[in-house]
């Protein structure tokens, strides 16, 4: 790149020089609402469909852990494009027709996937190395073939280079139509095969035992991936088409644990990125659609990863924080309950509270917060000297935790053969998550074994 960043005179720049003129609001609105001419609308609709198809099929590629196989596949399409062009030129046909080039791309793409399987089957190399080898060697073959085309009398590889980085601007209506049609086909096939895909993705061993043709279904998934990849070559280019497959599905994964919802969300994210990318690139000619599409889905991915309520980072840390607070609070109740007097009065002095905080390694300030929370919940009252006294409700809660502790302890000693001196630590973590039914089961198990059940 040091070389490629060569400063050149503006006048001799090979790139058309545009001002950074932003399109007017009218232009933006008309493009987004498909009013900006037939061609633009077709390209935008086609790219949107492609985004939806890639998002949907990407879910299954992701669940089958094939994300990077898709990357190798898309790189492996380059020699196919070049070979198809050469073959057509040798036969005297126009090599630049899209169906011819895309068929070539599909053939070598599939060959690439087959090559990965062969390397895995017949050598000791691991999947990462196999993917990297296929990706780079196939792409190298493609580069060499492109340089061959450059030297052919009829050849001009210029038209082919758009497949590397993608160029929606160069698409004809027929091209966009073809892309949209392939995408639509892939969508339909996925929806029809949803059940088969789901079974294989969740438990392939179980599916095989139940008589499902697992390899055939896998083949179907990869075939759809090939279709989508090939369809996306012209719009986003082979370097970025893999992102259209995996980014939406990884982003959607943060929002839900249900497969059908995952498919829908991934489709929506993919479609939205495709739509925005194609529209932006129609408005700003120097913004390549591929980049905008991937960046849009990248932003959605970031938002999803941080904010999604199901598996997002914020939601997960909030849940962890709440659990930590609850456990710490329960430790106070338990400790106070175990220090109860003969008359049933359970209390802790300020010094005892401090000792508990030190023992549990609570950060400074947490002790005060916990006491306030427990008081607001009606579990304890505060004394004037900084100590606490449990209310009847607090005593009940403390009794329950204390009993859970001893139940689990008894269970570990009598069933898991753990030395009595070693049980305490692990019990401290388990006592908070024992559910009611589990407590009943423990009681029953201990009774059966003739062990004393804690009161």
């Amino acid at each position, binding site marked *: *790149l*040091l*070389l*490629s*960043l*060569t*400063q*050149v005179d503006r006048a001799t*720049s*090979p790139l058309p020089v545009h001002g950074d003129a932003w399109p007017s609001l009218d232009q933006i609105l008309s493009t987004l609402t498909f009013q900006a001419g037939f061609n633009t609308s077709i390209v935008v609709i086609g790219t949107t469909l492609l985004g939806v198809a890639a998002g949907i099929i990407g879910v299954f590629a*992701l669940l089958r*852990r094939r*994300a*990077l196989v898709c*990357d190798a596949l898309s790189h492996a399409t380059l020699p196919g494009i070049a070979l198809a062009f050469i073959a057509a030129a040798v036969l005297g046909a126009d090599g630049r027709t899209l169906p011819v080039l895309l068929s070539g791309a599909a053939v070598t793409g599939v060959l690439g996937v087959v090559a990965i399987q062969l390397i895995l089957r*017949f*050598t*000791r*190399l691991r999947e*990462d*190395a196999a*993917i*990297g*080898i296929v*990706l*780079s*060697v196939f*792409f*190298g*073959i*493609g*580069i*060499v073939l492109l*340089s*061959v085309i450059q*030297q052919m009398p009829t050849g001009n590889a210029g038209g082919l280079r758009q497949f*590397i*980085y993608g160029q929606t601007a160069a698409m004809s209506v027929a091209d966009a139509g073809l892309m949209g049609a392939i995408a639509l086909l892939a969508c339909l096939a996925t929806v029809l095969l949803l059940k088969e895909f789901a079974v294989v993705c969740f438990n392939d061993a179980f599916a095989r035992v139940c008589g499902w043709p697992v390899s055939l279904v896998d083949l179907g998934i990869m075939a759809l991936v090939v279709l989508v990849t090939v369809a996306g070559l012209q719009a986003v280019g082979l*370097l*970025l088409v*893999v*992102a259209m497959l*995996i*980014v939406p599905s*990884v982003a959607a994964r*943060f929002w839900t644990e249900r497969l059908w919802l995952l498919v829908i969300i991934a489709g929506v994210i993919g479609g939205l990125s495709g739509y925005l990318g194609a529209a932006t690139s129609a408005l700003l000619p*120097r*913004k*390549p659609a*591929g*980049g905008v599409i*991937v*960046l849009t*889905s*990248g932003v959605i*991915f970031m938002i999803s*990863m941080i904010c999604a309520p199901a*598996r997002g*980072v914020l939601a*997960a840390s909030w849940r962890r924080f709440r659990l930590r607070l609850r456990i710490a609070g329960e430790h106070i109740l338990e400790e106070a309950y175990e220090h109860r007097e003969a008359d049933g009065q359970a209390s802790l002095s300020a010094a005892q509270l401090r000792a508990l905080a030190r023992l549990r390694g609570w950060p400074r300030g947490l002790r005060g917060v916990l006491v306030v929370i427990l008081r607001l919940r009606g579990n304890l009252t505060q004394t004037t000297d900084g100590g606490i006294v449990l209310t009847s409700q607090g005593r009940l809660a403390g009794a329950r935790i204390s009993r859970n502790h001893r139940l689990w302890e008894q269970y570990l000693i009598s069933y898991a053969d753990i030395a009595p001196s070693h049980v305490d630590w692990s019990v401290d973590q388990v006592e908070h998550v024992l559910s009611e039914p589990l407590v009943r089961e423990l009681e029953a198990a201990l009774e059966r074994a003739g062990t004393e059940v804690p009161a």
Partner: protein
Amino acid sequence: MSDAMSTFVTLDLAPLLAAVFASLACGLLGNFLVLRRESLMGDAISHSVLPGLVIAFLLTGTRSPMVMFIGAAVAGVATVVLVELVKRLGRVEPGAAMGVVFSVLFALGVLLIRQAAENVDLDADCVLHGDLEAMALYWFPPTEWDAFLTWSTLASLPRQVLTLGVVLIVSLLFVGIFYKELRITSFDPALATSQGIHAGAMHLVLMILVAIATVASFEAVGSILVIAMLICPAATARLFTDRLRSQIIASAVFAVGAGVLGYFAASLVPALFVEEATVNAAGMIVIVAGLLLVVGAIASPSHGLLAAVIRRRRLARGIAVDDLLAALFRLHETGQTELTRQRLAPMLPGRVLDTAAAQAAAQGLVRAEADSIALTPEGLEAAADIVRRHRLWESYLVSEAGVAPDHVHDIAEMLEHVTVQPRTGPATDPHGRPIPPSES
């Protein structure tokens, strides 16, 4: 200096050096990526340094190598950290995490490049496959050998060659000095940590070097060669050896071999078909590296396909001979010393019987006539040996492993071929047949 030599030096020496330096530097570092099962980190980094370079350029306005290297190193570290973050915080599987991070960063780089193209010519294609051939135009070497090894000549080499030379030296030093640390952190990071070696830090430094090698190679050989050289030579070497030291040496040989062969193939092979034709040299080097790997996968004496086929063949033949001898011995026990082939047919399928009989006859273990087979004295000894092993295994399986007597035959049938013979043991097997005594 002869004319041909002078033409070679003028036209080919500089690009050839660049190709070999880049291949060797990447090939060395790649060993540890392949071992860590992070081969694709090279792929990821070579995609994601793009925004690092453009941002470094946009911030400073210069393209000096130092600025570019810092941009690349920062981007490399950012990639590693982001992949790790997405993997851990997002609970995303490693492959997908890597794919998301590098493709989004690459998209950012592509957009930024177009943005910056306002005042610089950014040839995105060049990033992919480099421009080795153009390098010859920048260098006017001395015409006499004596003048070669002087500082001024070396300093007049194209900048890309010098940069790659420095990167190669740094990689060599890194691998040489930190060999022990790299080895232990690659194989067992937990053990490394317990020994006081910071596994994470070694990982980061390795990734920074990969990023720097990527950038240094970009303009000369292109990113595709970097990705291939980070994986192919090390993977090929892994097919030949199980020792890290010999793997590194072998990978260096393969890297240099691919660089030299590929470079010359690019200009010589097409010329066979069309006069004066050449193809992209970086691409050709990658193809040669791939071919070396295919050859290694097929022909490696230790892990190759051919070797495996031959080993299996040999084992199968040895087992067939064992089976023939054992069958003859069992019939011998019943008093039949000369056997027709028909009598043996139920025990050994025809084709196996023929090859086994020929093999055993060649070893002097049986006398094979047109349709009768008999054990020689040596053959009888060898056959007693095999049956002894078989029956010893049967009695072991029944008495020690608790297998039912009517189930042990098939297991013993497999184990009899691969065991050394114990000296003592019971006199009869679980079915009451005598176990032939040990010879010695």
